[in-house]
């Protein structure tokens, strides 16, 4: 029986989704709002889902409690409700939040709609296929382990009734060899599309925590979108200063090194990973590089060379995001601009602050590659 509470619950969830959609831009630029949970869901604080009433604020409020304690000892924190400022506001209240869970996939769909991202046309289609067996049909013969008992007995019953062997007072049904039915399977070939994402980040001294935060937020959304578009995704992380090394996700976001910067070292490592482990014809390969644009001057040329020879010809997309740093000179993007016209899959973006994340994602993923 369909219960009415399920209808109400469904409606509630729809409303939550609507609210998330409305506020998506805020979530995109304020990554800290997302508390990532598990593999497939995120929990999000959603505003204004309460029904507002006239209520007392905490200012001047109090209550009665029970227990030990001297006069003056604190017993609990007040809510930050932002009242008492006494200034006019045209913003309706934003104080009440509610944590809700939402599927990552769904979030990616919303992102796609919000940013009007085109669906990605994967390359290497059909080159990798997986075969799946589905038990969808019935056969007269087969191994006993696949015998379809219900159908077999139904057939036997039908036969017995037809031949007048069936006695309802003694309802014994005995299948014969002919009654037996077996399950059977069909194999379907399914094309599988896979993608490799390589994140590269400059962790030299000039990249501060603020910049890394931008990278973290942006890559969260890129991950979400690409995961939504491909069946299987491999993500690799490379950090570099003057030398590059591959690290895990956690290290990627939290390492800080000092010293100079040689971007080419990261390119070399990325190239090696790609060539050794991912056949370029079968994989959709994405490179995302984040840096403050401060490279060791003599390195620039070899970077550009390597990019043109080894990386750009093989990847779907090479995105370079330059985050503004108080220390970096930001010259590297100028080097890349020179070759931008020749390579359609090279995307450059300057990310000045968190608000720029939104446009940057749109720029990176807006090509539909």
């Amino acid at each position, binding site marked *: 029986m369909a*219960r*009415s*509470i399920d*209808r*109400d*619950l*469904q*409606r*509630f*969830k*729809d*409303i939550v989704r609507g609210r998330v959609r409305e506020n998506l831009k805020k979530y995109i630029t304020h990554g800290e709002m997302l508390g990532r949970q598990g593999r497939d869901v995120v929990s999000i604080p959603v505003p*204004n*889902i309460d*029904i*507002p*009433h*006239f*209520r*007392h*604020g*905490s*200012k*001047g*409020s*109090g*209550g*009665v*409690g*029970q*227990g*030990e*304690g*001297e*006069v*003056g*000892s*604190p*017993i*609990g*924190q*007040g809510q*930050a*409700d*932002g*009242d*008492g*400022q*006494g*200034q*006019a*506001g*045209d913003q*309706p*209240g*934003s*104080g*009440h939040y*509610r944590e809700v869970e939402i599927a990552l996939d769904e979030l990616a769909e919303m992102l796609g709609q919000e940013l009007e991202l085109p669906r990605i046309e994967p390359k290497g289609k059909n080159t990798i296929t997986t075969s799946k067996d589905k038990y969808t049909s019935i056969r007269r013969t087969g191994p006993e382990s696949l015998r379809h008992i219900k159908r077999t007995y139904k057939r036997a019953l039908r036969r017995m009734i037809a031949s007048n062997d069936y006695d309802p007072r003694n309802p014994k049904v005995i299948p014969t060899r002919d009654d037996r039915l077996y399950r059977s399977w069909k194999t379907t070939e399914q094309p599988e599309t896979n993608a490799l994402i390589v994140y590269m980040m400059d962790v030299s001294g000039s990249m501060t925590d603020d910049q890394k935060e931008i990278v973290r937020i942006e890559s969260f959304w890129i991950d979400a979108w690409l995961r939504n578009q491909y069946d299987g995704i491999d993500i690799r992380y490379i950090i570099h200063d003057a030398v590059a090394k591959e690290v895990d996700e956690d290290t990627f976001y939290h390492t800080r090194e000092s010293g100079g910067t040689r971007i080419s070292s990261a390119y070399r490592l990325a190239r090696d990973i790609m060539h050794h482990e991912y056949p370029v014809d079968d994989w959709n390969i994405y490179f995302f590089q984040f840096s403050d644009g401060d490279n060791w001057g003599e390195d620039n040329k070899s970077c550009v060379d390597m990019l043109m020879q080894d990386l750009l010809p093989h990847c779907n997309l090479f995105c370079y995001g330059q985050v503004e740093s108080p220390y970096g000179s930001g010259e590297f993007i100028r080097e890349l601009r020179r070759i931008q016209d020749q390579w359609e899959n090279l995307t450059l973006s300057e990310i000045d602050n968190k608000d720029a994340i939104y446009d940057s994602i749109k720029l990176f993923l807006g090509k539909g590659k």
Partner: protein
Amino acid sequence: MPISVQRPLPPELAAIQQEMEGRARDYGLDFFETIFEVLDYEELSMFAAYGGFPVRYPHWRFGAQFDELMKGYAYGLQKIYEMVINTDPVYAYLLSSNAITDQKLVIAHVYGHCDFFKNNAWFSQTNRKMLDQMANHASRVSRYIDRFGFEAVEQFIDACLSIEDLIDMHSPHIVRRETETTEVTKALASPLQAPAGDQPQNTSKFRTKDYLEAYINPPEVLRAEAEERSQKEQEREKQRTFPESPQRDVLLFLLEHAPLKDWQHDVLSIIRDEAYYFAPQGQTKIMNEGWASYWHSKIMTRHGLTDAEIIDYADHHSGTMATSRNRLNPYKLGIELLKDIEERWNRGQFGPEYEDCTDAYTRSQWDKQLGLGRQKIFEVRRVHNDVTFIDEFLTPEFCLKQGFFEYRFNESTNYYEIASREFQMIKTQLLDGLTNHGRPFISVVDGNYRNRGELYLQHQYEGIELRQDYAQDTLANLEKLWGRPVHIETIIDEKPSIISFDGSTHEIHEK
């Protein structure tokens, strides 16, 4: 008409029920027939989300509530043990996963509630056939949804719910005003009254010959009189506000005067009916839970328990009675205060003689062996609500024994801090928190504010300011119902101010 085809209690529980019912009756509890059903947690949560009823109108907040209850249960944060609704017959729901000791306790507890529902004066005006009424509401709302669309009805319900607490809790018990006579019937009742202002200057003029006119009716006197009259007229006009006196039942005011379509009118009246139905439960939370707890502990400890069950019972009971520093437990306060009253009336610790005694030792040893306690608490459960209960029976000795204190919000630290352990302070604070369910007092003062048909509400400031973000959102919802700009007068930063919403923007200015 419960949602499930009624499932008879398993024999084990039926036996317990019978025993408990018998015990409860022996103690003099008086209740309607009580029908118990056993539900699993999901079903119980559903009933709880619906306020105890199997059928409610479709609305997402029930779903939200359900979600919260289910999650709270899944994460082990909370658990509902039982649910009783105030109807005749009473329906009570038990949680199937409760251990048998818990079921006993809960059944005994339920009979306490049943007695309270039937006998407490504040429930006397509630509809005991609410089960049918709720189902009726549900089908009416569903019909509107079919006709006018889900979104439209839902948005309207949202707006109504936003002000559902703006009701006059005492109105079911008193007549606030004469039955409304409409303008038409008023006009018919006094048909021959000449229209005002027809020839007002003639009234005090004496008949006279022309040549005496200036002496008998001196023009300056006439003029002065006319002025006086028109001034009075104006004053009367000024005084005749709309509504004539501030009206607490904002919902009723809207029903009578807001430009609502028929279906909207009906939906609003549904919301109002339900708000009034649930109001007494909010008014008597402490007493109701205290009363039920008093009886479950009495019945269980005297009769219900086997040796093996003592520990489970004690564990559960103490869990229910747990106190905390920042929130008063209504179960605990209720049961302790009832016990205190019982003891005082048993020992005769009341009346002028006792009150006048100032010697603490004599007072504490006071015992006239009157044995009136049981009788007294039965009387208390009949006439009081939480506010009068506390007001009448809270004593300094009791506060001391319970370790009560008053806490206040300290703006400079953003912490709640213990402010006082003085009896008067505690009592005042307690009463403040209970009066009007701890919600701000708000009434309609003017339905034609600035002569522009705008709605003007007034917040009766009692020392606590409104939460502004909530207030603004609520105003926005109110504007949807009223259709014209709405205002609320309140205090912001110790200055009288008005928050307004005109349909698009909020404005806050000092009065």
